[in-house]
């Protein structure tokens, strides 16, 4: 069968930069074509160009042919008839894709009305059918978006996209904002929809697991160009380009691996919590009777979905948040009972790395200022010694001395996170809190930062509470793993046991929900009942 959507020689230029260059893609009916690439590779710009949704400042040339008809450069009113009816778009963030003040049923009806369904009764019937198809009870059409969870909202967004019965669905990172168990549900739904409606899906994603789970063919993009396009099995088993190979190698995996254990059981733990409870008034407990400890030199992975309490527990662990009840021991002492000077001395032994590299450095201070800050705060040595120490730290995180004079906005995301690491290690801490340190980074950058983290941990031997929603990332760095759910500790044990042979049912669901970056293995994991007919 010929191509339903054919993109040929597409070029998109913004003033001062070329975003997409000579892109050729073909999408057939009943096919999922994944476009993968890191940030800035041009994958989203390509999708927007197809929809004619780029800002006016963009110069677009080339050709986009839908079912034999050129749609690039169509006048706005004709494009409107293509959008929705022929090609629909699903964005990443479901919470902003729905209008918060209108009922979801009305929003779907709106799409139907825009595409010529005049009768109110027919709109209601079609809306109910669509909701049912995406697994939302039709009677909930009368609810407003805030009554739905993130996964349910993404289902409704899908219903919205499918309302005018399009042939092509463009999904731009449709599961990136979702928890892993919800992601698994949405992927299952996408698979069913594609089969039932013979949809052609252009899937834009950075997640190789999602690609392996859903895609038939894959196009790898980098710097605005398509490097290679081939079958999903082919790409994963024998990538043709070196970049694709590197990209695949950088994906963290959930396989058991042995790392030398650094636990010295006899040592006093750097952090110990016994039956701690943290609650916010009027809401369920953020942490409910948690007991765990972190040994010197140990990396404890904290995993869980959003709202599980992992960040709260991390803040308790570094003495930034007090427990309402239970006992907390930080380096053997209760931080709540310490005076100001003692607390300062305690804090000297603690470092933190945050998630968002853009916000974790003061935009007005140079890299050198940021890295010397902990030394300045504690008045360590002379100014010259502090600068020398900062340069040594920059060297350890593989940055050059001249980076020291730059402002954060002049660095890439990965470089900023290296600076944050250098700052956290400036005082040779005994305990490091890393709260989702790589979630905002591209896969290959994430791999480099994780390697660096492991290397530094080996060298300095600090204990670490490593928070992540990504089980594979935790698997790569953690000695032990604690699984949290709704503020409760579900499972705690050595990383290889918890992540490869989980004993708690919830952990097993969590592990099974992570799509494996290997199409063959992922298909067999999914089981026969979900098998897509060939």
């Amino acid at each position, binding site marked *: 069968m010929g191509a339903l959507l054919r993109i040929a020689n597409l070029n998109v230029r913004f003033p001062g930069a070329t975003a997409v260059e000579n892109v050729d893609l073909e999408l057939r009916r009943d096919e999922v074509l994944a476009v993968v690439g890191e940030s800035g590779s041009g994958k989203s710009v390509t999708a927007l160009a197809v929809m004619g949704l780029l800002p006016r400042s963009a110069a677009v040339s080339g050709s986009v042919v839908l079912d034999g008809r050129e749609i690039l450069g169509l006048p706005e009113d004709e494009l409107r008839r293509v959008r929705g009816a022929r090609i629909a778009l699903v964005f990443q963030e479901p919470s902003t894709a729905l209008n918060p003040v209108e009922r979801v049923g009305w929003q779907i009806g709106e799409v139907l009305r825009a595409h010529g369904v005049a009768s109110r009764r027919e709109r209601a019937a079609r809306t109910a059918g669509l909701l049912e198809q995406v697994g939302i009870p039709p009677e909930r059409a009368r609810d407003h978006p805030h009554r739905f969870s993130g996964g349910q909202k993404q289902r409704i967004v899908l219903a919205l996209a499918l309302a005018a019965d399009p042939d092509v669905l463009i999904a731009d990172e449709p599961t990136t904002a979702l928890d892993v168990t919800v992601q698994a549900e949405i992927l299952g739904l996408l698979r069913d929809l594609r089969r039932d409606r013979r949809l052609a899906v252009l899937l834009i994603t950075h997640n190789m697991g999602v690609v392996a789970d859903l895609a038939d063919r894959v196009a790898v993009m980098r710097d605005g160009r398509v490097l290679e396009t081939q079958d999903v099995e082919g790409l994963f088993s024998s990538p043709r380009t070196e970049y694709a190979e590197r990209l695949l190698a950088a994906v963290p995996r959930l396989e058991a691996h042995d790392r030398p254990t650094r636990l010295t059981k006899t040592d006093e733990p750097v952090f110990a919590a016994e039956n701690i409870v943290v609650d916010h008034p009027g809401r369920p407990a953020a942490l409910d009777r948690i007991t765990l400890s972190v040994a010197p030199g140990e990396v404890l992975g904290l995993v869980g979905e959003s709202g599980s309490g992992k960040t709260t527990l991390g803040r308790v662990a*570094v003495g*930034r948040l007090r427990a309402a009840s239970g006992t907390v021991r930080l380096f053997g002492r209760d931080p709540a009972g310490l005076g100001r000077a003692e*607390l*300062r*001395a305690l*804090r*000297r032994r*603690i*470092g*933190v790395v*945050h*998630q*968002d590299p853009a*916000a*974790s*450095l*003061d*935009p*007005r*201070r140079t890299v050198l200022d*940021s890295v010397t*800050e*902990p030394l300045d*705060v*504690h008045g360590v040595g002379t100014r010259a010694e502090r600068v020398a120490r900062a340069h040594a730290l920059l060297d350890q995180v593989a940055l050059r001395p001249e980076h020291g004079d730059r*402002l954060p906005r002049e660095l890439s995301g990965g470089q900023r996170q290296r600076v*944050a690491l250098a*700052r*956290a290690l400036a*005082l040779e801490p005994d305990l490091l*809190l890393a709260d989702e340190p790589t979630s905002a980074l591209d896969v290959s950058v994430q791999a480099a930062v994780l390697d660096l983290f492991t290397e530094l941990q080996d060298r300095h031997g600090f204990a670490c509470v490593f928070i992540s929603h990504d089980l594979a990332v935790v698997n790569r760095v953690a000695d032990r793993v604690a699984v949290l759910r709704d503020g409760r500790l579900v499972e705690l044990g050595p990383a290889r046991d918890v992540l490869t042979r989980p004993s708690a049912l919830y952990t097993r669901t969590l592990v099974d929900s992570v799509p494996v970056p290997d199409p063959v293995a992922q298909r067999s994991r999914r089981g026969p009942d979900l098998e897509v007919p060939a």
Partner: protein
Amino acid sequence: MTDIALRAGRTPRVRRGALTRGRGLAGLVLVGAVIAAGVLAPLLAPYAPQQQIPGANLLGPSGRHLFGTDEVNRDVFSRVLYGLRIDLGICLVAVPCGALVGGLAGLLASRTAVADVVAQRVFDVLLAFPPIILGIAIAAVTGVGALPVICVVVGAEVPLFGRLVRTSVLKVRELPYVDAAETMGASWPWVLRKHVVPNILDALIVQLAISASGAVFIDSAMNFIGIGVRPPTPSLGGVLAAAMGQLGTNTLYAVGPLLFIVVLVLGFQLIAQALLASRRGDA
């Protein structure tokens, strides 16, 4: 605060860029010209402000009397220049005072919940009073003069700066880099000095420019209705008020002082807009 502004080094470069072209430059030139006129009044003014010139009653504009003369034979141009000195003086004292008091109140409000409630309610009360009514109330206690005008301008600025500083501090405090600094043991004064002040300085400077234009306006209005500087001492608002009765005979008697008020307000507004635009582009 100026100390930190100077040491922050890199940041004023952006601002200077905003004031060396376009709107910013135009604003700077306008404000600079008016300030220069005020400062150089003794040199520029052809007559003393109170000097009564025999035979020059309500003359129209001419080479000898740029804005004509008033009903008691004084040169309007000279009175406007000297009035300008007083108005600029009031703004120069009142705006920084208001900014300082408001800024400190905002800082205090961002520290504890009790201070927050108290400061916020005081701001509410101050904002609820129209400045003119507030001025009349203060003048009833202190008598007319420069003092009630200064009090009103300060009273109008305090809530603006208080709210601005409070919200900016609360916003900056939540950012990860402040959290990182506090976790590794930085004290509150350290965080304030190194992170908070440099990061809210831009917003403060924009607000200063906006407030300066507002202050000129309030000051002129107070003098106009007669609760400010007492005649025969000249002020822009005072000269304008006296001119109202003579609009038919000497139009420039009223237009002259008005021109200076408008140019000053416009200049400060242009500066504020240019700074704001460069800040947005910067972010």
